[in-house]
């Protein structure tokens, strides 16, 4: 509570930030409470549900599982940084077009996990897609259309269509 504040420097969605945080503060709380980036959701705060997934240096990380200070000097992308200038990312577009989204609460985390996967592996097998989003719980749509949408996006990004 009364812990001293420490300096945090990081890049979020391409923009540099310098702020003072308590050492105990989680990255998810900096994103949501300090930077007002509420697209990153909080489901469990125990690293179980994946709703808070962001990309750190391109990799999928649950932002409730890291202290904000652990992101010091790193490049963070949250869901707000995925679309560019009003144009949806192919993963987002595929999820919309394919009807993958229901309540939408897991969607930002799902997009971030898929984005990290396709950055690393442009041609994933179905098993690799399933593995990439295994940390992202969904509660209502059954995963089928999410998995298919990610496959459609991968093809689109490879210029397959």
């Amino acid at each position, binding site marked *: 509570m009364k812990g001293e504040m420490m300096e945090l420097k990081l890049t979020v969605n391409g923009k540099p930030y310098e702020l003072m945080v308590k050492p105990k503060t989680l990255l998810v709380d900096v994103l949501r409470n300090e930077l007002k*980036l509420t697209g990153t959701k909080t489901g469990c705060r125990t690293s179980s549900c994946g709703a808070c997934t962001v990309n750190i240096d391109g990799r999928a990380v649950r932002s409730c599982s890291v202290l904000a200070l652990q992101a010091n000097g790193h490049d963070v992308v949250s869901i707000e940084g995925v679309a560019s200038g009003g144009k949806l990312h192919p993963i987002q577009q595929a999820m*919309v077009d394919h009807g993958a989204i229901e309540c939408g609460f897991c969607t930002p985390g799902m997009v971030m996990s898929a984005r990290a996967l396709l950055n690393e592996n442009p041609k994933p097998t179905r098993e690799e897609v399933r593995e990439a989003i295994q940390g992202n719980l969904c509660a209502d749509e059954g995963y089928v259309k999410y*998995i298919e949408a990610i496959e459609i996006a991968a093809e689109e990004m490879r210029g397959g269509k």
Partner: protein
Amino acid sequence: MGETFGNYSVIGKTIPRVDARAKVTGEAKYAADIELPDMLWGQIKRSPYPHARILNIDTSKAEKLPGVKAVTTGKDFGGFKWGWSRETRDEEPFAVGKVRYLYEGVAAVAAVDEDTAEEACDLIEVEYEPLPGVFDPFEAMKEGAPLVHEDRPGNICVEYHWNFGDVEKAFAESYLVREDTFQTPRMAKGYLEPPAVVAHWPDPNHVVFQGAKGSPYFPYRILARLFNLPLSNVRIIQPFIGSDFGGTKNDMVHCDYAAVMLAKKTGRPVKLQYTEFDELTTCLRRHPMWITIKTGVTKDGMLKATYVKAIADGGAYTRMSPLTMFLTGTCMTLPYKLPNFKYDGMNYFTNNPSSAAMRGHGLYHSRFAADVQLDMMAEELGIDPVEMRLKNAIENPEPGKVYETVNGVHVASCGIKECIEKVAGAVNWKGVKEAKRVEGDKAYAVGIAAATYNSGTKLSAHNACAAIVRICEDGSVNYLTGASDVGQGSDTVTCAIAAEVLGIGLEDIDLKRVDSAFTPVDPGSYGSRVTVLAGQAAINAATDAKRQLLEVAAKQFGVKPEEVEIKNKQVFVKSNPEKNMSWERLVRTACYETPGKVIIGRGYSTQGISLLGLADFSRGFGDIGTNYSFTAQAVGVEVDTETGLVKCTDESVIAHDCGFPLNPPAVETQCQGGSYHQGIAAALYEEFKMDKGLTLNANLADYKRPRAYEAPMTRVEHVITNDPYGPFGAKEASEGSCCSAPPALVSAIYNATGVWIKDLPTQPEKVFRALKAKKEGKKSL
């Protein structure tokens, strides 16, 4: 683009969801994303006992902590009691006399930040006198057991005793009679978004409530009664909702009461959000149930009679248990013809967190028991389970005719036979033996089951959904709905229905979600009621607006209004399409021609009630649904015969009769999700482990939920029956597959291994022990 159904401009084909873009970009605001200027944070003080008398609550130390702005206890609520219906108001916003389950709320604090509020809660001193408790219905029903509610003898929360036909005579006449007891687990609802709320009072006579509520007009009515405010002064603004599945997001939880009372006391906005632990230890759960079912059949496999005795753990308060027990009984007479039926439904209070509605509400318990038992009897009779289902299945009534069950349930459309045939065909079903395959330690098989669910659920009192279609002068349209889309896709289909009726595009319609200051009152999102009833409201409201516009067009064309039509934003005389104008021109003419019209269409649903009246809960007679969906499902499994681990395979098909798929991909995700998240989950993974009222696995690591790496790639086939009571023929989608998944899975395990698992979930240890017992020559369960 996927399949197209019917000959429509907007509906019956892939409709991108109206809210998908906001959700996929993170712009959609959920309750926890709301922040207001000068906002305080609240926290709940909870009881460390599952059953105890409260002797004293001392809040003085908490009040003195710097940063604390207000403290509230149950006494501030002036004896206010609430519940699911007027007769079942047995719960107070915060416990006053005694606590009835572990972590029940006893007080709450508002402070400048979350840490201070939490610290203040620790400073509240509560004196308790611990009491002995009851932790399952069998303890609760014992003579002399401690009473959860002193005025409820025997801890009986709900009981129904129904009898139709002559069950005993039918059993005596049956060739084969079998009795089995099945068990369903205590389960979490499964939504990811924990309850959250922000409340404020703009002035002492107006309250504004923004909470994660799938049925926002529950708090609307509850808060008016609590604060003795006119309904006009209660404003519920609905954020996006991260799923619901019944119960917790229908009515109230402690954080809702805390927010409104602390905001009133401080004059500032107050926000509370639950943690996963709060949610999993205190929020509503699916009832665990023990279902004893006795069924008699003829030699050739025709059902003669069924007697069901269901015993449920209702938890600490009544909540929706009367409805649960009704639903558990009522649909035993669907989807198969059943001439004699008896039901004893018993629900007991215990010192566990309260049980309530959950996706597949009620039917999931009893349809699981009945459909698995049907397979057992088919085997004893030497009849193929698919054939036995087809023999007993209710026929699709001729147009204009209605099938009536022995307990007064009316079915105007029934695609169950087609559903069963479709899944059997899709998995190339040739029989139980042929369904099995063994590779080393792995045994593979498929199981098939069938189910039903009521849609457009109708209850006593207010039932209508309503909508307002506001035509703006440039031709754009606002659709104001009282209905809530918690993810099921009703916002999209109701807007699509309005567009279809008006003859315009979906993109011309802008949806306004619930804000009770402007939108019409609505019962809520439960009982698969929204698409069916809000859909009719959409038709009626759009038709009303269109009628007003057609009058203007008729005058312009010099014809009668019924001679004019609007399609694809073109307004034309039906007999002479050369006479036409654009939609925009018509609207402009209507709005600008002196004195200028204001086109507002209004409509509400009548279908649910005008049809055949209401069900009589005490007799178990009559319709709870406006219409009924039918589902058949094939589930493939891989059973590890060494470890007992069961996985679903991609040999997974659902055929669903939703009457008419207004938005086919939405019907598909609803069926896939209903099956996997709340059906397969119950059958394979999920169960709260309890120890004297304490939830031992209250986190999503220890409480196993279904994940993507083992999700079956379930295919969905649409069965079209065009129900006469649904909007454009539609019925529900999703609760049906929630009910067909568990029996199909258990049947698949049997087909693979020869062991019946009758108590869910079929976790590896249970399967392992059953396999071991079978190997050692012991009789299967």
